[in-house]
């Protein structure tokens, strides 16, 4: 808890000092995308690392939120914040509908069911032309406004996204270090034992699945308002896999590790344009190699290093 609080505070400091050094809108746009994926990945980490379940459809929930915001604001002229809320609720309902039959079964059922859901949502985005604009999508999604401010510039939107992220990160830290957080970790470690101690295993898995879908939906809404247009392509299967890769590379049991993963996998392709064609190859390799050699991710590697340094210092002190 203490360590997470320190990291949270450090990140907050970073978020508010960074604009002193960053001036190019391009860097802001990269930071915004990192923040948006960061929000999705915070939720996904809790699902993968704390409930021991995999979703291959989080890009679908992400898109669901984005489309709710876009459709409700452009076609029905709803207030953007209200549209965001409606999207959030709808996504959570969808997650419950999918989670209720699948989460009481083995892990691969949820993985496949979410994979299927992601595909179906893609189809819906493409087919319901009247509503979604089909493959070309919707344009002129309005900007978000609050306190007399319009979040139109990249810098303003940067603050908005990262404040969202910091709040959700803080809430996630609280959740992970609570009675329910311990129960979730117990579930991912040994379901039978967790159940025998009175933990309602399925209900908690469902809860965290819905929460993680909700995070994705909020991120999707922000994404739609940031770009001010949506089309089906950023919500496909490959993005879902990329999200899982972010979690895995950072370390599925660590919230800050996942944020690190989101940062790495968003920034690297931006700066190494060569990577684009090899994107799939790289994600695939990341998933396999991390699972084989560092299942705890970068966070695990860093923790190991820390431990090693500490032990070495101990030995030195003992010798002295």
């Amino acid at each position, binding site marked *: 808890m203490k360590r997470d609080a320190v990291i949270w505070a450090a990140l907050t400091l970073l978020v508010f000092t960074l604009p002193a050094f960053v001036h190019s809108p391009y860097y802001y746009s990269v930071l915004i995308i990192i923040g948006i994926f960061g929000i999705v990945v915070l939720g996904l980490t809790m699902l993968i690392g704390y409930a021991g379940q995999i979703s291959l459809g989080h890009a679908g929930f992400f898109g669901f939120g984005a489309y709710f915001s876009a459709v409700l604001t452009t076609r029905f002229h709803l207030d953007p914040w209200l549209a965001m809320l409606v999207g959030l609720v709808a996504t959570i309902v969808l997650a419950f509908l999918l989670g209720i039959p699948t989460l009481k079964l083995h892990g691969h059922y949820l993985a496949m069911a979410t994979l299927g859901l992601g595909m179906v949502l893609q189809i819906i985005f493409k087919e319901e032309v009247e509503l979604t604009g089909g493959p070309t999508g919707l344009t002129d999604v309005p900007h978000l406004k609050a306190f007399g401010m319009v979040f139109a510039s990249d810098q303003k939107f940067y603050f908005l996204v990262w404040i969202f992220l910091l709040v959700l990160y803080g809430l996630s830290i609280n959740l992970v270090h*609570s*009675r329910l957080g311990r129960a979730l970790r*117990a579930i991912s470690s*040994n379901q039978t034992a967790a*159940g025998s101690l*009175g*933990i309602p295993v399925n209900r908690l898995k469902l809860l965290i699945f819905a929460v993680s879908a909700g995070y994705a939906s909020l991120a999707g809404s922000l994404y739609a308002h940031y770009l001010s247009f949506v089309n089906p392509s950023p919500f496909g299967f490959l993005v879902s896999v990329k999200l899982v890769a972010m979690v895995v590379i950072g370390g599925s049991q660590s919230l800050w590790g996942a944020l690190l993963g989101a940062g790495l996998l968003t920034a690297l392709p931006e700066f190494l344009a060569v990577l684009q064609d090899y994107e799939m190859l790289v994600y695939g390799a990341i998933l396999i190699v991390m699972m084989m050699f560092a299942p705890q991710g970068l966070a695990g590697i860093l923790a190991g290093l820390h431990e090693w340094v500490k032990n070495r210092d101990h030995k030195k002190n003992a010798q002295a």
Partner: protein
Amino acid sequence: MLKLENIRKSFGGLKALDGVSFEVNPGEILGLIGPNGAGKTTLFNVVSGIFPSDSGSVFFQRKNITRLPTHQIARLGIFRTFQNPSIFEAMSVLENLMVGNHLQGRAGFFSAIFKPPWERKEEQRMREQAQAVLKGIGLSDSADAAAGSLPFGKLRMLELGRALCAEPHLLMLDEPAAGLNQRETEDLTNFIAGLRAKKITIVVIEHDMSLVMGLSDRVAVLDQGRKIAEGAPQAVQHNPAVLKAYLGEEDWIKSLRR
């Protein structure tokens, strides 16, 4: 307190439990023995709801709990340990105990994320409670160690402690002494005997006969899914059906006679 009526359970063609009935009285320690594959662990799994019986009923304090899911059975105060210690390896020793405390807390999702003062107080209380149990099982020194790093004997104690954190009315121990050395077994026996004072009813599966015979008020014997004997430890030891069940397991007969 606990009453089993004609429990049957089979896996594929194998009858693991073939019409078992017995009762556990409040406050007693019941030893459950029998050769390997007699169905003892299956019986625990049925009572704790890990898998439901094919037929028959389980009553706890007159309430029919046969079809209840595992976590609801725990809510009634029935807790257990496992043959292979099922601790949460990646969590710290203290956290393991605090998971044992789960039912003592009430903080739900919203109080977890917003942390109102009462939630903090509850956390504090759960931590103190777990620390008290930690002291009782003699693991205070390793409170913050990863549970997976403990030696086997301490894992058993940790698992027992975790069940105690839950403040059980009925505690089911599945071979608590398996894999322990002589000294550890003695410590464990004393510890379990100490629980009697706390009015916890205990059912214990055990192969270590000195432990079973020393601790139990009564003993029930299972063989091939059936109960073949039940009664005072002394009487059961000389029951011909019991001796026959253990035939071929010479050491067992010796240990029974001892």
